[in-house]
């Protein structure tokens, strides 16, 4: 298509947006509400997901070995554990290393513990086990507790499962709600454009009798729908991107990253995700809405 023609289609689209300003306003508002929810949902879900992943990766079963166990007995225990189902990896961490790790994780408060290095080390040796599926860690932990020379077993105690469960429920509710809203938006856009088309039925008829192709007739409506969707994406994008930046800054500022051992998605990345997905979804529902209403009128 020539640029001149595209310009013509764009002008026609904008003209009819203005002509049906109330319906245009209604559809843009519907898209705005829908995308606001989509955006919030996306933000929450993406963050829950990264958090869940971080936690999942850190879900290990720590098996503290009885201090009385000799190296040969430790090896036997290791073999016993390796024979269990759902074991992905098993790593031996001697107490010296365990203490180093602990000191590192304490950051600024570490000095107190530095003196413990050497003979006074209060930690036992341990095995760090990763299961093939985080949901199996309880079962594995329970089994290992029965073995000889096992002092204590520590694991995620089900909070991972709970997190996944919450994520699942939130996802399902969100999807239903958002689908409903998206369909409403498509419907409203379709109706807005139908009004435009009905008002211009004669024009379309003449166009077609003069030999205009369907594509030519369709373009302005296509652009109109696209613009409605796009305009509907502006407010949700700005609101959520700015809001998220604030929350993220606050989260960093209060140093929650290191207290809670979880990281949120950086606000720049999130802004990109939001911009991309909201614009894409807005444009798609706009185009979808317009195409459903144009189709019927092209049969001349």
């Amino acid at each position, binding site marked *: 298509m020539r640029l*001149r023609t595209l310009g013509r289609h764009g002008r026609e689209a904008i003209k009819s947006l203005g002509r049906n300003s109330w319906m245009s306003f209604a559809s843009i508002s519907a898209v705005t509400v829908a995308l606001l929810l989509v955006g919030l949902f996306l933000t929450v879900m993406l963050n829950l997901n990264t958090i869940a992943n971080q936690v999942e990766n850190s879900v290990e079963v720590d098996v503290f070995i009885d201090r009385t166990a000799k190296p040969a007995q430790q090896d036997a225990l290791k073999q016993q554990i390796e024979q269990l189902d759902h074991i992905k990896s098993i790593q031996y961490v001697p107490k010296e290393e365990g203490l180093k790790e602990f000191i590192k994780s304490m950051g600024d408060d570490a000095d107190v513990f530095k003196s413990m290095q050497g003979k006074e080390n209060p930690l036992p040796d341990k095995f760090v086990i990763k299961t093939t599926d985080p949901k199996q860690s309880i079962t594995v932990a329970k089994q290992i507790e029965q073995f000889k020379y096992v002092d204590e077993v520590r694991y995620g105690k089900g909070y991972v499962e709970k997190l996944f469960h919450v994520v699942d429920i939130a996802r399902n509710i969100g999807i239903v709600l958002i689908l409903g809203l998206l369909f409403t938006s498509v419907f409203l856009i379709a109706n807005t454009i139908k009004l435009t088309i009905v008002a211009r039925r004669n024009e379309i008829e*003449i166009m*077609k009798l003069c030999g205009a192709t*369907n594509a030519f007739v369709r373009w302005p409506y296509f652009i109109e729908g696209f613009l409605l969707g796009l305009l509907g994406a502006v407010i949700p994008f700005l609101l959520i991107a700015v809001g998220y930046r604030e929350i993220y800054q606050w989260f960093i500022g209060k140093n929650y990253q290191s207290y809670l051992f979880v990281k949120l998605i950086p606000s720049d990345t999130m802004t990109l995700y939001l911009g991309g997905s909201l614009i894409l979804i807005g444009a798609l529902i706009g185009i979808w809405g317009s195409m459903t209403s144009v189709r019927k009128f092209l049969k001349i």
Partner: protein
Amino acid sequence: MIILIEMQDVWKAYANGVMAVNGINVHIDKGEFVYIVGPSGSGKSTFIKMMYREEVPTRGKILIDGTDITKLKYREVPFLRRKIGVVFQDFKLLPKLTVYENVAFALEVIEESPRQIRRKVMEVLDLVKLKHKARFFPNELSGGEQQRIAIARSIVNNPPVVVADEPTGNLDPENAWSIMEIFERINNNGTTVVMATHNKEIVDRMVKRVIAIEGGMIVRDDKEGVYGYEA
């Protein structure tokens, strides 16, 4: 003579079961001027509509310039329409566009270049003698003038055929004649004209080929015919 339009055993039944056209065979040569006459409801409009594929025959072939237009794919129809100018009884001008814009519209929607559009529109407005009213809006023109604009629009792309369905039906005799004069001129320039009409005076005085249709069948086809019905 070169055959431009040919109908072979064409039938048309509408969805509601009305048999509008019942086995028509006809040739129209390049450059001919043909009146289609017949009583109300005899199938004249249906005959015309099938030529630019507003209606598709239930059976038979319609060849235009050698192409069977009943077999056209949906996306090929626009290119048929560019070869056929259509004029209606009610003009079908766009009220919000000026005279100039109404005519230019026909070229814009087929993506003609702006320079060509300007040249062709002025040329055709000259032909219908309305150059001086290019900036007027349709409602500022008489019925006859509006129809002249509609004709200008139908021929601005220089199609080999112009079909018209009762183009003088809404006009007083004086305006009707001004329209006929234009059709005559277009025809003299080599364009084929097919016109359905109820206007006895015109058919009898501007003598051309007359095809009479009754009950969807051709009952008469005279090279230099007469209207043949009571006015």
